[in-house]
């Protein structure tokens, strides 16, 4: 595989929320890029900022939150000739309610959520809602749009697409709704699909159906996927590359094989060892991470993981924020891999 062009590039993204308790640094300096056709898995526990990162890309952060720093660049591919002539769009500079971002949102970058009920309007039929997006982004008339909607529903494995078109969201089962949402997301042929815990609320057998479907569709449509989840099993299966987040920061960025075979950050390692396995017997106890995730408005100094870290270096980890270090092919944000951090960046 050649090195494809990046499709989206996030640089030093900081999205902060002002709440009564203080400032929540939900996303605190996150950089990564997604290449076209690739699947990037974003893993972390609740409150690590994975969903806010996605919302920042979509410019859907709720009013209390603000992108205070960083740049999100979207490279719009010209799909007519195979030559790479990319138009550069600075997403961070767009008005979150303006026409440009609305054109991108839903059209070029689509999103699938954990709870399909929140993204479907309960008073309109599935057909109306999918065709509306098509009419908006693809300049179709109602008839063409409905035709295309049925086609997409068929593509996502709906047995009776025309019946689903006339159904209301509450008339469908959880799995069917999730399929419809994927159909809606895919109807405009997006170049990036952001999937935020799309299978968390589903049963395993339904989850299996959806995962299989997404892989198949990615193969045939060639879109990139940013897959956000807390489930390590799901990313192992779906992702090419994985970023692990903790308290608004990336702690490790590696290929899926590296991450699972040779995890480097103590948090990643602990996480992998703490999950029970369906395919292995774990003798006696699981290795658990001590303590709990701190409140988002009182993030510890230095490395955010240091109070729970088994390999804590006193005087360094609790004082200095680790920079990214390249170890083998992984990017790790940990002082263990950076022998002399203190000398270089002694604080005042």
């Amino acid at each position, binding site marked *: 595989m050649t090195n494809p062009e990046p499709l989206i590039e996030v640089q030093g993204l900081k999205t902060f929320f002002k709440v009564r308790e203080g400032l929540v640094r939900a996303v605190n300096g996150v950089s990564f890029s997604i290449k076209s056709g690739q699947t990037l898995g974003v893993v972390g526990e609740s409150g690590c900022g994975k969903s806010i990162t996605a919302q920042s890309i979509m410019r859907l952060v709720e009013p209390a939150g603000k992108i205070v720093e960083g740049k999100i660049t979207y490279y719009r591919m010209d799909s007519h000739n195979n030559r790479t002539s990319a138009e550069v769009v600075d997403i961070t500079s767009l008005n979150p309610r303006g026409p440009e971002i609305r054109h991108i949102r839903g059209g070029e970058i689509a999103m699938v959520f954990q709870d399909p009920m929140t993204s479907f309007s309960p008073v309109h039929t599935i057909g109306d809602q999918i065709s509306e997006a098509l009419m908006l982004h693809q300049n179709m008339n109602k008839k063409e749009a409905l035709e295309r909607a049925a086609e997409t529903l068929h593509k996502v494995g709906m047995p009776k697409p025309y019946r689903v078109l006339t159904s209301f969201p509450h008339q469908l089962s959880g799995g069917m709704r999730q399929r419809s949402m994927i159909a809606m997301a895919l109807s405009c042929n997006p170049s990036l699909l952001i999937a935020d815990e799309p299978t968390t609320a589903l049963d*395993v*057998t339904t*989850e299996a159906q959806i995962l299989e479907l997404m892989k198949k569709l990615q193969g045939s449509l060639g879109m990139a996927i940013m897959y956000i989840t807390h489930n390590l099993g799901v990313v*192992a299966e779906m992702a090419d590359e994985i970023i692990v987040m903790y308290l608004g920061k990336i702690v490790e960025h590696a290929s899926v094989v590296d991450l*699972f075979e040779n995890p480097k950050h103590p948090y990643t390692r602990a996480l*992998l060892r703490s999950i029970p396995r*369906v395919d292995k017997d774990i003798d006696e106890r699981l290795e658990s991470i001590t303590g*709990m995730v701190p409140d988002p408005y009182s993030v510890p100094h230095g490395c955010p993981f240091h109070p729970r870290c088994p390999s804590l270096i006193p005087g360094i980890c609790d004082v200095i924020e680790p920079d990214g270090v390249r170890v083998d092919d992984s990017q790790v944000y940990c002082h263990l891999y950076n022998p002399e951090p203190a000398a270089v960046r002694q604080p005042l």
Partner: protein
Amino acid sequence: MSDQPNEDNLILDIKDLRKHFPIRAGIFSAVKGKVKAVDGVNLYLRKGEVLGLVGESGCGKTTTGRMVMRVIEPTTGTIRFKDRERGWVDLASLDRREMLPYRKNIQMIFQDPYASLDPRMTILRIISEPLTSNNLARGKELEERVASIMEVVGLRPEYMSRYPHAFSGGQRQRIGIARALVSGPQLVVADEPVSALDVSIQAQILNLLQDLQKKFDLTYLFVAHDLSVVRHISDRVAVMYVGKLVESASKKELFHAPRHPYTEALLSAVPRPDPHHKSTRIILPGEVADPANPPPGCYFHPRCRFAIDICKQEEPILEEICPEHFVACHRAKELSLQGV
């Protein structure tokens, strides 16, 4: 675990347990049909054993657990429980008042650590409720017992006077566990106790549950949908599908050599944290059957890749095909299915 189940080593013996919810409609709430949420479940638990009860949402596993707790009234069936002081009793035959003395010996851990603690009560009052309600302790003794159980579950006793809103999800689940254990129960029904928790907290709570089991010689009925968790904690596993038990066996047998096609599909569907694992996933076609209107014959046959004519007509019964391995499938003996 090899000894046959008998009156001496069992603690819970459920026979033909059913719960049918009526479907009402119209102004006069006439009964229009019934949902067979639980339909003829047979289960037994040995003393000191962990039985994992798995299945997908709506399969009746939670209803089964709650019927054992008698917070849902069984429609028919027996739930025999061997009480420490009073010996064997059929919990299903007791009325609310008669049930009270048994409550301290059967306790429950809930899924949602937020909804299961009354936000208006201090931790002391929450944890001590099983003691105060049954007049088991009061005053200084009560506080001491609460303090000691708090320490056992890893909470600082000085937090006793705080309210639940002061605690994180993991800590709240510890509070819930402390409440379940303070009266010294024999049997604990754990209803998805870790599924609402973060990955790193899950392991803490699972370890705690295992430690407590050893320490207090507990028996768990562990209701869960996460097969990884069930594999980790259970000795035996029972699988439910649309209100019926389809398979139950020792953990080892069930995971390595399942005998029911549904179990096989369920196991294959779990995503594995192993990038080299080649997915041999069995994708079940269609949707879970509607318990209000199930298909004839075996409820699983419309989705089963091994279904033959008999499966469409005759309901399979739960059979013991080898010692302690029960399967409800017409073709259980001939199929060779894949485990993990």
